[in-house]
């Protein structure tokens, strides 16, 4: 009988609703005024009253089927309090109010700052801004802020200069464990993108076929705690090359990788796009292997936030979580990619030519060896943060000596990767999340069982433990 549910996406931004029990005013005008200042101490009480009002309005609207004239007549005839008691006896208003508040209370903060690195991995985080997805969830005035490197975005996130941040998926794990930074508990509500990386080699190495031919090479990766680093090491080690002894791996910002490849200081790199494509464009390198050829569907970048943000601003956290899941699902559809490329290419976001972004997002590209390839899943999007992926990352952090001693794999994985919460939001939105949070992955033909991380580690001969 309620007719329509209170629209959750609007609860946070409702400013002033007219009293539906008042026969003198209209409720048919709409609700979304300006966002409130988050410092207003009356705000919580205010917005609760507004939420109450929204429920009452929804019920009244349902009863009168939107007929404004008959509502006014009825209210004038019987008076507000009588109407209230009559309707309460028909419909449990109090229960509805309590449920709605629990489902989505007032947003503690609407003008969130979300840090990003200008690479195509950040697609969902960025596109949610120009395409109005943050606003749809009441996060008015939210903005995405460009950072120039992973250390910078880490410091911004730890120092609370941004509320949420685009990170590499191993970063929230490393931050939570206090590896390579001060220990700060972080959460990873959603994965930004799958795949989306490649091994690029200098043009002089066109005859290279396997890791064996790469001994003595100097490689670059964007950050120590990155899938790029772990995948490159894994790839080399599988081919019998010790990444700590037989080659050099340097940490460099991706644009410097292209410049260094040109200057012949590097033999190759494993980096995010568009910098692989950029080497082809500059005619200094070629795409040797897409990372999806090593592990199809591997996690790459992450949407992350501090545990403090999630606990002190649970409603804003939930709103931004919803927005990201929405944006990621939208990005996952290949037919949307051209629109997305248009939206995120301008100067204030990626600052790249639309064609370059489009080539990466649609997966139709030239590889620098003369071939044009069509790989629709060159980059892919799926928000679900498998706990098993976290366990794999932890095994590699231990394998290469970034963490020492015993690691409580599952505890850390489940604390940081919010698989259960993400699944719930996906279900609410009508997407079908997986039923479990752990699964076996296959990396370069070798199976990884997330329930046996230590056995997995022991199966490697090349490691630094």
């Amino acid at each position, binding site marked *: 009988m309620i007719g329509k549910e209170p629209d959750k996406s609007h609860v946070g931004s409702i400013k002033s609703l007219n009293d539906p029990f008042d026969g003198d005013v209209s409720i048919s005008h709409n609700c979304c005024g300006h966002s409130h200042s988050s410092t207003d101490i009356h705000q919580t009480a205010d917005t609760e009253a507004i939420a109450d009002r929204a429920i009452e309005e929804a019920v009244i609207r349902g009863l009168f089927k939107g007929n404004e004239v008959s509502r006014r007549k009825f209210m004038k005839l019987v008076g507000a309090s009588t109407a209230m008691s009559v309707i309460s006896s028909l419909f449990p208003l109090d229960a509805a109010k309590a449920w709605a508040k629990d489902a989505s209370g007032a947003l503690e903060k609407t003008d969130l700052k979300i840090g990003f690195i*200008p690479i195509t991995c950040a697609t969902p985080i960025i596109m949610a801004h120009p395409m109005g997805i943050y606003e749809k969830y009441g996060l008015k005035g939210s*903005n995405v802020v460009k950072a*120039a490197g992973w250390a910078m975005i880490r410091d911004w996130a730890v*120092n609370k200069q941004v509320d949420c941040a685009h990170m590499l998926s191993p970063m929230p794990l490393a931050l939570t464990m206090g590896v390579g930074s001060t220990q700060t508990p972080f959460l990873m509500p959603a994965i930004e993108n799958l795949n989306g990386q490649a091994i690029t080699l200098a043009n002089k190495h066109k005859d290279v076929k396997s890791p064996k031919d790469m001994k003595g090479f100097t490689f670059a990766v964007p950050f120590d705690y990155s899938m790029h680093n772990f995948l490159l090491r894994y790839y080399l080690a599988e081919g019998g090359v010790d990444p700590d002894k037989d080659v050099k791996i340097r940490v460099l910002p991706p644009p410097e990788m292209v410049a260094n490849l040109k200057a012949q200081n590097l033999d190759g790199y494993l980096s995010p796009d568009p910098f692989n494509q950029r080497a082809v464009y500059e005619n200094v390198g070629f795409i040797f292997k897409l990372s999806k050829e090593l592990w199809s569907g591997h996690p790459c970048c992450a949407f992350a936030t501090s545990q403090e943000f999630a606990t002190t601003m649970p409603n804003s956290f939930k709103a931004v979580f919803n927005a990201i899941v929405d944006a990621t699902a939208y990005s996952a559809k290949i037919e949307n990619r051209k629109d997305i490329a248009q939206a995120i290419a301008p100067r*204030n*976001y990626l600052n790249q030519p639309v064609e370059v972004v489009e080539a990466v997002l649609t997966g139709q590209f030239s590889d620098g060896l003369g071939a044009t390839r069509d790989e629709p899943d060159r980059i892919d999007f799926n928000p679900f943060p498998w706990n098993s992926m976290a366990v794999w990352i932890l095994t590699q952090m231990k394998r290469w000596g970034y963490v020492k001693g015993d690691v409580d794999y599952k505890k850390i994985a489940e604390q940081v990767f919010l698989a259960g919460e993400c699944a719930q939001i996906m279900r609410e939105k009508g997407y079908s999340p997986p039923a479990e949070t752990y699964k076996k992955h296959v990396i370069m033909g070798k199976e990884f069982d997330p329930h046996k991380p230590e056995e997995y580690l022991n199966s490697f001969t090349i490691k630094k433990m």
Partner: protein
Amino acid sequence: MKKQPNSGWIVLCMVILILFLLVWQLLGGKTGGLPGPIPVAKSAWFFLSDPFYNNGPNDQGIGWLTMYSLARLATGFLLGTLFGVIMGVILGLNPVLFKALNPYIQVLRAISPVAWMPLLLYSVQNSGVTAVLVVFMASVWPTLANTAFGVSNIKKDYINIANILQMNPVVKVFKIILPAAGPTIVAGLKISMGSAWVAIVPAEALLGTLGLGYFVWNEWNNLSLTSVIFAVLVIGVVGVILDYLFTRLAMRLAYVD
């Protein structure tokens, strides 16, 4: 050859510029090399035609970016000047204290201000404040050293007259010491301003605070070298203007004994 016509240097200056542009055009402009002067001029026109646009925190006009950098520079520089001049006067008037602190000052001023950045960022946990503090660190030492030197070398006669007139110490500082040491102090300020302007570019780049330095870094991150070259030119021109203003100030404060 004794008296060149006034326009001679202008002609020479233009010839050098044209030669430079020609060499640049010949060396750059090839595929894979540095962009030549024409694409840079195009990019300069793009930025200069609308210097005060604002497309949110990631894309603002070059005019705004220059303002942000100058505001940061002014804040850090004023703090540095205040501290430097006060400490300089104290040390200039106390030769023993000056000698005792001098080794520390020498060590501190040898440290690149940007080297302080990680420690500052870690302790204040705010990149905006850190950038201002880096500017402070860059501007405090030349001012301090020059002020102390200027104050300690004021003619004894001036001090003696102040003592005969029984001036109180505060009046003495403002009426005698600062005016007498003025030219030396301003020379120090000029050096300070130069090193502060040099420090602000890497500080903004590393901290990600909106300004010219961050602009250079973001354009580099996109490998748009035309924008990088344009920004480098803007930084140079602003630096020259600042330096010119200080030269004018120094001329006004100069005096003859």
